[in-house]
């Protein structure tokens, strides 16, 4: 009993640590700028929705959210389509260079972003993809694909090979087996992989900012314009920040029952 009490206490403390900064942002998003800068108030004196109204009534603001959603979904789709067969290959077969290929895939997460931005910009401009959603989606594949292969490989290895063999004896072709039998068996793995893709693509700013200018500009880059000549518009910035958190909460709500299994990356 003593033990349980200590656990609850510790957990509460950690959750407070996580939530208080977010509360502060939420609190600011309902204030006017002069109140934010004037004094420290734990609850808005003059409660206002103005900041949110500004965002939702101006296309150059809310299109940022749409753009971000578009490239994140594209990234999830592309990543899953290419990573599923690859993960299957890594889990079932031994082939020339498999270990090296796997390590090489992972090394792409390690490149320092700063100096690589210019080559990225040049590369995507030269193939005519600059300022499109697909450019950002493809660039983000650089770190979502390796992770997806890694996660899916764990899940696929959990499916016994007898399943494959039985299906082939029953006369299934490989593509039909893969889509009709195999994918349903690892669907929680697919859900979790999609969640991870979302997680890493949604939060990334540098590449997304570099590869876009107007048409596909992500919300995170649009937020920087709250810094005006008169200083920062804290209220608007907070409201925009709060709105970037909402999609994340929705996504995690959908996968909550698989998260425990999924975060182990199918590897326990």
């Amino acid at each position: 009993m003593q033990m349980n009490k200590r656990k609850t206490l510790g957990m509460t403390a950690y959750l407070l640590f996580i939530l208080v900064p977010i509360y502060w942002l939420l609190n600011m998003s309902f204030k006017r700028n002069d109140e934010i800068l004037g004094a420290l108030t734990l609850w808005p004196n003059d409660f206002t929705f103005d900041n949110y109204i500004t965002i939702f009534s101006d296309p150059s603001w809310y299109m940022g959210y749409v753009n971000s959603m578009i490239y994140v979904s594209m990234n999830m789709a592309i990543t899953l389509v290419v990573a599923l067969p690859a993960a299957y290959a890594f889990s079932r077969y031994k082939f020339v260079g498999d270990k090296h290929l796997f390590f090489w895939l992972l090394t792409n997460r390690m490149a320092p972003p700063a100096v690589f931005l210019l080559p990225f910009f040049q590369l995507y401009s030269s193939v005519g993809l600059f300022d499109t959603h697909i450019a950002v989606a493809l660039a983000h594949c650089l770190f979502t694909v390796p992770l997806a292969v890694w996660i899916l490989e764990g899940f696929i290895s959990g499916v016994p090979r007898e399943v494959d063999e039985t299906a082939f004896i029953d006369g299934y072709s490989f593509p039909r087996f893969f889509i009709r039998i195999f994918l349903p068996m690892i669907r929680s793995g697919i859900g979790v992989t999609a969640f991870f893709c979302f997680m890493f693509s949604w939060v990334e700013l540098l590449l997304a900012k570099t590869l876009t200018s107007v048409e596909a500009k992500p919300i995170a880059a649009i937020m920087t314009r709250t810094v005006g000549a008169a200083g920062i518009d804290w209220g608007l910035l907070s409201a925009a920040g709060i709105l970037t958190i909402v999609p994340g909460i929705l996504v995690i709500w959908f996968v909550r029952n698989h998260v425990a299994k999924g975060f182990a990356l199918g590897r326990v």
Partner: protein
Amino acid sequence: MKKIPNNKAWFLVLPVFLLVAFSAIVPIMTVVNYSVQDIFDQNTAYFVGAEWYREMLRSPRLLDSLLRQFSYSFSVLLIEIPLGIAVALMMPAKGRMASVSLILVAIPLLIPWNVVGTIWQTFSRADIGLFGWSLNAIGIDYNYASNAGDAWFTVLLMDVWHWTSLIALLCYSGLRAIPEAFYQAARIDRASSWAIFRFIQLPRLKSVLVIGVLLRFMDSFMIYTEPFVLTGGGPGNSTTFLSQALTKMAIGQFDIGPAAAFSLIYYLIVLLVCYLFFTIINLQDKAK
């Protein structure tokens, strides 16, 4: 599982290979190309060979930020790994509270990185932020914008806030995978809770911890957005981490050649550390 040798499996891997190669190989070759040239503008560049590499390895400014980077990454790991394990042990195992705490713990991971910077920028301001204001109210002189130590502490605290959840969730899922029978056996043996942790839980957490340590090392080593938003690298150079020093050099001063050379050195360091880590873990697995 025993794997069947079959080189036709390459056809299944080919899409991934092509996709990643498109975004990986061309940029890295471009950077290699920059690193051996002295570039004045688009049409004027001279081949300088390994000169930038020699110069960078002697440059005190970059070595400083490399050192700062290492101490930062190690502090991050030193705090986040034990704290993450502790949080995972404290999280409720089942029921409604489990789902709720799972979602709440995951929130920091889903916030765009510059928003994380913004949150802490406002939260810890001494005049209008709750955290900074409270610290000052209880008599601690705290101002991250002017005091280097405070700035460093704030960036570290922000990272702990942001990423401990990843370790916690990884460990949480690792713990859920331990069969109940293990605990029953431990109860029969009257094992203390420390012994349960040391001999049952920790060994089963190894594989997820490997992933956690690798991800945290790689990401904290190239941290850029959050400290950039929070402190802009200051005061002075106290929170100018490697990525930021490189960006200043490449874009601010347009010294692309040296910056590229140093990026590659830096890339190789990360690669080497990860490779060593991987090899050691693999060797240990084999020894068992």
